[in-house]
């Protein structure tokens, strides 16, 4: 079960935490590919995976239940804890 809390801050900053700095190289890193569940997005991501693997990256694939809603918080957490970088692909 998730916990919903009230933001204790002055709400001047967006609620998301700051992004990590961009890696210099993808060699040896784990890259997540998030399919948003649009048709043929998998075709595009399959090609991206080939390219990334060629650059020395390990690729992990993830998929949102539906493109109409944000990724569930637990999926975001799983990506954040198991990947060094993530590519969220929009395809139509």
């Amino acid at each position, binding site marked *: *079960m*998730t*916990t*919903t*809390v*009230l*933001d*204790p*801050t*002055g*709400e*001047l900053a967006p*609620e998301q*935490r700051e992004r990590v700095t961009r890696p210099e190289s993808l060699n040896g890193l784990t890259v997540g590919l998030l399919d948003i569940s649009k048709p043929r997005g998998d075709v595009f991501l399959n090609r991206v995976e080939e390219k990334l693997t060629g650059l020395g990256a390990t690729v992990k694939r993830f998929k949102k239940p539906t493109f109409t809603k944000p990724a569930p*918080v*637990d999926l*975001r*957490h*799983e990506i954040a*804890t198991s990947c060094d970088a993530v590519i969220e692909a929009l395809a139509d």
Partner: protein
Amino acid sequence: MTDKPALPDGLVAVVKKDCPTCVLVAPVLEDLAARADLTVITQDDPTFPADADWVVHDDDLALSWHHDIETVPTLLKVKDGSADDLTVGWSREQWEEFAGLDGLGKDLPDWRPGCGSLSVDPTLTDELSVRFSGSSLTSRRIELAALEDDWEAMWDRGWSDGLPVVPPTEARVLRMLEGTTRAADDLVAVVPPDLVECTVEKVAVNAVMAGCKPEYLPVVIAALEAACTDDFNMHGLLATTMPVGPVLFVNGPIRNEIGMNSGLNLLGQGNRANSTIGRALQLVIRNVGGGKPGGVDRGTQGNPSKYGLCFAEDEEGSPWDSYAESRGFSSDVSTVTLFPGEGPRLLFDQKSRSPESLTKHLGQMLVPYASPRMVMQFETILVMSPEHMARYRDAGWDRARFLEELNGHLLLKGSDIVAGADGIEEGMPEFVAEMDLPKHPPNGIHVVHGGSHAGLFSSAIGGWVTGEMGSVTVTKEITR
């Protein structure tokens, strides 16, 4: 707040099957439905007291919660959707008067008390208050993932001073807000350094995180109001490289009402109110105002009281007027005083038996604060222990006499403290060399009585720059 649903006009009874009195009056309800156009609102079993169109199931308890039903059965006269009059439990006399009918429940006793309404069941009240009034809170909702540890997630977002914080859920914040009569959206202060408008709700969120009980909230609100005055200059207190922060102490009836410690270990750990009120203020400044170490908070070394130092004066055990009274407040008013200060330091005297000896020694011990060469810039709180205070009680000295004598021992020879004297480069400018200078500015010693009854030790808390250049001690009335 969700919209208040209207009750059906006419005679309305609120009942639950899990109440012996409601079961007892079930035949009366059937009788009233037939003769007096009664509507029954049932909280649990939708077919109690009958599977009929005059029985309405309050399945989400919205009717009961919004109309403040505390007891079942409650019989109400409803006009335009709201109760005009009501009676609780079973009373033949009152029910007959309400219905305008005779001969109700002839076989029943004259009177029976009711049971608690499901809408005030302790296991449901948090859930119901979130369901029906949670939407009145305006803070951004942040969802923590099920796979995240709540505490780690809050730490990662930068909301903590380093110690664990209590997750500020809607239920906890709503409960905290019951500690004040002020509306959640009332503006309390504009909080430095980011100058963010802070509502009662935001104070409550941070008070939950600090571990406060709802009855502490008025103290936290008053402390924040005091901290955000021009006089107190919270921005400067954060930005200075000196190891200082807001030091709080409380006077008046609220000290005892909320269980604050003014006795043994009053400056230490272990009392919830002392430990969390100052911390709540610091969390508001950190989270709402954005004042964090390394940001605007530039303390070179800091000090542990920056987690939040708060205590209460032992007024009952003191022969003197209270500190707040000495500042012109009435004894029946509660106040919080904010002093821009360091952590406490020991004042050791186990042998003085006369007030003269003790006062002279206290004077010597107060000279080194900040530096023995610095004068008139820094104020001091003197937390006088009961055993030290006994010297003045026995001798009949009052606060004014004590301060006059003490200040007499705090006059320093200018030639001793100018820069360069005795080979030390730090010191006062050369032009004071021929003067005698007081250690403190006028009214710069704040005496507060507290501690246990055993121990010939007192404490002092040094300040940072006072007056226009720095921060002025502020005492603020606490309102509920």
